[in-house]
């Protein structure tokens, strides 16, 4: 297991480097100019100086390696310095956003909590809804509950989050006025009143994302339960005289959860991507909103760094899913 992990990690590095190169070249090929919004009255020689100040004067490969160095060495070391009071990378250039002239990672650190509270919580809620639904649907296959559950998960799967979000806003924010339609990120939870406010503003975005995720995961859960319910060991367990509850909730459920756990791990980075839309609907200024505003402003360092972070998340969670599968299922041997 350990050797497998150690073998997998170096394999992930070339693919991450390749992905970063693809993103970099895509941005490089783009005809957009980060100085496009500079007024025409600015003389060309000043514009040239501004270009150099942004680090755009050099050849692309030099800038690519510079960015790699900044991402993998200076930024982690800066964090190390800040934590332990050392001065390893003192005074070295960090990745700076074109748009706000602030280190990219500082902006990202500001935005992560919003994304994590909304997206992370909704994923949790989605999983908690999906697993019982999947269990009951599979146990009572073709019952009315199963038919309804399958239909609803099909609907949940087919309705794009921007549509469910907008419908919820129309019903609950505009007509009933139960919840606010805009997520207020400046809200600090200090007492019960502000906590209640936070809960109310989280209800709709969390519902939208949770339903979407629950629709997918419950289908996996149902299929996995169905596979296991037909196995011989279930008959053996029943023949031993175990109660139905023990058979289903201990024997079958544990085995069925193995593939579902990996699906959940694999879906986690995709949720960050899908949350881009939900964040836009409810005006949550998290990572997704940051990415869109950076793309629109041609803020190359920000877009590059953010997209690469998404890629790292995908690679890391794929690795985690593979390892989890090996840990949970002793029949799988990687060596």
């Amino acid at each position: 297991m350990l050797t497998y992990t150690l073998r997998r990690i170096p394999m992930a590095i070339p693919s991450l480097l390749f992905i970063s190169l693809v993103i970099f070249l895509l941005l490089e090929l783009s005809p957009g100019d980060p100085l496009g919004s500079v007024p025409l009255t600015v003389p060309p020689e000043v514009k040239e100086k501004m270009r150099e100040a942004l680090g755009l004067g050099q050849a692309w490969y030099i800038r690519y390696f510079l960015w790699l160095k900044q991402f993998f060495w200076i930024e982690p070391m800066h964090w190390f310095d800040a934590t332990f009071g050392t001065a390893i990378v003192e005074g070295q250039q960090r990745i700076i956003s074109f748009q706000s002239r602030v280190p990219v990672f500082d902006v990202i650190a500001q935005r992560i909590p919003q994304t994590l509270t909304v997206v992370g919580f909704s994923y949790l809620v989605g999983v908690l809804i999906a697993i019982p639904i999947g269990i009951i649907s599979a146990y009572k296959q073709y019952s009315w509950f199963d038919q309804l559950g399958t239909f609803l998960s099909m609907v949940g799967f087919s309705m794009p989050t921007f549509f469910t979000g907008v419908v919820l806003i129309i019903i609950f924010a505009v007509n009933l006025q139960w919840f606010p339609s805009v997520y207020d990120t400046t809200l600090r939870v200090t007492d019960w009143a502000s906590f209640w406010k936070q809960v109310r503003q989280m209800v709709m975005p969390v519902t939208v994302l949770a339903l979407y995720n629950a629709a997918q995961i419950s289908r996996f859960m149902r299929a996995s339960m169905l596979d296991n319910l037909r196995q011989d060991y279930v008959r053996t367990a029943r023949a031993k005289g175990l109660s139905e509850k023990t058979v289903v909730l201990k024997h079958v459920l544990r085995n069925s959860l193995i593939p579902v756990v990996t699906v959940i791990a694999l879906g986690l980075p995709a949720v960050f991507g899908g949350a881009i839309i939900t964040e836009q609907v409810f005006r949550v200024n998290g990572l997704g909103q940051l990415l869109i505003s950076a793309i629109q402003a041609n803020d190359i360092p920000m877009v590059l760094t953010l997209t690469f972070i998404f890629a790292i998340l995908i690679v890391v969670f794929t690795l985690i899913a593979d390892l989890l599968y090996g840990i949970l299922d002793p029949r799988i041997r990687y060596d």
Partner: protein
Amino acid sequence: MTDPVTPSNAAARAAEPARDTAELIRETASNAVSPAASTLPPDDPVSASPGTPATRSQWRDVWAQFRSHRGAMIALVLFVLILLFVLVGPWVWQVDATFVDIRARNKGPSWAHPLGTDQLGRDTLARLMAGGKTSIAVGLTAMIIAVTLGSLIGILAGFYRRLDAPLSRLIELFLALPLLPLLLLMVTLFREPLAKNLGAGLGTFLLIVVAIGATSWMQAARIVRGDVLGLKEREFILAARSIGTPNRRMVLRHILPNVLSPIMVAATLGIASAIITESALSFLGLGFPPDFPTWGRLLFDAIPQMQTYPMRVILPGALISLTVLTVNYIGDGLRDAMDPRIRGR
């Protein structure tokens, strides 16, 4: 298990899902009682059965099984209705979707405008028809690109052992790409130059279709590769190889027809995800230009007025959801119908 095994009910058994003893009985019975049946490849047990004439084709069986899937049939009818609405609708309701009539703006439903008009006085019904045409066209074209690319790479990776490792690595790399951010990036960066060269509508259409196609072929490629790897071990491939079939004909005549069913299922589900992706791009304001209606764009344009005119948001959104839902159900029914283990039950 007690009934006597006659050729006809052995043939009926053949279509049953794999069940230990029934399987055994069927195999021995069909070999012993009807030698004619065993001369045909056991690839498609139903059409190979002796009781039925040769006119029973595989596709008719697939259709028969598909019809018994109630959800899929309802979905098919609804999808055809949506297609008629989008394709034939503009011939019946001949109002220009882009015609601006400022004096008739924000009108409610009337005989002149059955679904009302928008903030510029454009007819909502005509815009929904035009928008649907673009959305479905994007879905279909992107699916064709994705499935062609996916099948090609899948067959190459599965058939040629030398290409397997690099192509599998390529699939993995593409699966690790953050797709939505990259799509957003591609569309934002290349929209204007392409629109300048090819015209706003065509340029954006090509860009979006190619971008979606190039980022969604991996699932199809993986499924096809797995199936081809399994097929390669089968006897009929060995037989074809032994009579000297060249690789090209091997792929086109023997491999491709056998992986057609997973490809078709992947294609159907691909339409659904392409429609969603296109409307998501339009919803983020990064899709088609404003005078070029698609369902996602109509939804996006209606967001600022959703408090006063909620119908303008709900109609295109409901159409997107309904189309995707029907396509998903059709894909589900196809998957069941194409699976010979379920078919004929």
